[in-house]
């Protein structure tokens, strides 16, 4: 118990230090916040444009309600929230891990009397990324107001749980990819690879239909579970409880646990194979 509290205190120190640092370069902080929001706003324009021409994404069949304008905006807002959390806490740190492995800087981290994965993953908090969290929550509120359906308290609680699951799945995938730098050496395409994988999770999973879409959907649900990251929390919130896909929601909990465990294993395997590059 004592260690958990200690780790939490260390994390708070990291968070405070990052905030002090961000506030020292305030102009930069503001520019970073604006640019990260700008990208989301451009996406939003694209989606507005789509709904200028269509009423639903995916056919509106009885069993499958189809994603109307405000359901989809709630979906997109969820995606923003999850990505903002990921960027604020993990993205910069995990990206730095590849550099640390390549340059041998990881030596200094291994020397510290603290769990290496914890230190590598949470050293910096990117406060400016939280601007997207705010933007995401505003968009989510706006969509919910315009939806005919009002979610129950239970759904809001489940939503928050599944958002955390989503962040955990993304994080696991990311740290496992970054750890693989140990074996691959030059791994500059990590960020690209990350972007390409997550393009599949940006849209409702119902769009993947047909002889090519079904296998794709299964692959990104059951093998690399990125499709459940945004889909599960979003649909929990916008559709009534009796229309939920409970088996898939249950699977998501399992997938989260499995992803975290697997990435922990990959990370430690990577450390065991790490051969301090430069010194």
């Amino acid at each position, binding site marked *: 118990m004592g260690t958990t509290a200690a780790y939490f205190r260390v994390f708070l120190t990291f968070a405070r230090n990052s905030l002090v640092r961000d506030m020292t370069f305030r102009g930069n902080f503001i520019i970073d916040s604006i640019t990260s929001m700008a990208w989301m706003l451009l996406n939003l324009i694209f989606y507005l444009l789509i709904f200028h021409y269509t009423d639903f994404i995916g056919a*509106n069949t009885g069993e499958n309600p189809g994603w109307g304008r405000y359901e989809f905006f709630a979906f997109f807002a969820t995606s923003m929230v999850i990505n903002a959390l990921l960027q604020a806490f993990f993205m910069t740190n995990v990206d730095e891990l590849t550099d640390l492995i390549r340059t041998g800087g990881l030596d200094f981290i291994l020397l510290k009397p603290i769990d290496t994965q914890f230190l590598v993953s949470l050293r910096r908090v990117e406060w400016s990324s939280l601007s997207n969290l705010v933007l995401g929550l505003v968009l989510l509120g706006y969509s919910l107001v315009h939806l005919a359906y009002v979610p129950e308290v239970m759904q809001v609680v489940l939503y928050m749980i599944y958002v955390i699951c989503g962040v955990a799945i993304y994080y696991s995938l990311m740290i496992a990819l970054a750890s693989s730098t140990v074996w691959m050496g030059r791994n500059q395409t990590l960020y690209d690879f990350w972007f390409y994988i997550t393009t599949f999770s940006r849209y409702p999973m119902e769009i993947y239909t047909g002889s090519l879409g079904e296998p*794709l959907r299964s692959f990104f649900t059951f093998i690399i579970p990125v499709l459940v990251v945004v889909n599960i929390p979003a649909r929990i919130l916008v559709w009534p409880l009796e229309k939920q896909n409970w088996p898939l929601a249950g699977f998501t909990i399992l997938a989260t646990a499995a992803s975290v465990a697997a990435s922990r294993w990959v990370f430690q395997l990577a450390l065991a194979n790490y051969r301090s590059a430069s010194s």
Partner: protein
Amino acid sequence: MLYFTVLRISIVERLAYRVDFAMGTLMRFLPIVTQVFLWDAIFRGMTSGPSPIAGYNYHDLIAYYLLTMVSRAFSSMPGLASSIARDIRDGTIKKYLLQPVDMLSFVLMSRLAHKLVYYAVAAGPFALVFWICRGYFSGWPDLWTMLAFIASLLMAFLLGFFLEATLGMIGFWFLEVSSLLFVYMLVSFFFSGQMFPLDMMPSYWPTVMKIIPLQYMAYFPAAVFLQKVTGADLAWGLAAEAFWVMFFYLSARTMFHYGVRRYSAYGG
């Protein structure tokens, strides 16, 4: 002869990482897979039955996204502006001032080498993807359209190069340009038509967006191939593209000329 050597050295250098290259090229098509499904879902979601969007039916749209990949293969200059700005900041740029080489020509040659190697390695993956997706195209366009398409691509390369070089030269006046470059990247992703065909924008927006030269980086060549731009519009479009190439060539030259006078050679 000098610049030919630069070209040759850069080609050898780039070929060292060819596997990374070929993999990277294939990966770049992955977002299109998502677009294939997304647009199918959009057309299926129209309650009054699928109807073309701004003159693009489903097949046109997928063909459009595939063709913007070709446009980007010519016009994108990854890292060009930031590397020029970095050379200015850390003082590396003085090698061009000491040695009898012209910086812009040197960088152009090494960039041309990057591109030539890229085409050599990427031709395979591109041919494969287009062959798989041949169903989205309604055959080859006529000879004149093909010639216009090729001309628009070659100019897209020059436009991309001189535009990014101009942006990099801003580094003579401001030490830190990375935020600016990020904003440029965002703006260009949107205004070049990589997100969607510019014709899809409502009211007067398509006209506005086609005045901005960024449309030549992705939209224009693709629209030419799909024969969405024909006749007088096509001639005017090509002429305007040539104008913008000249404009940014001159601006890069001018900024280098004045920038060097301000330059104070930091670093060792």
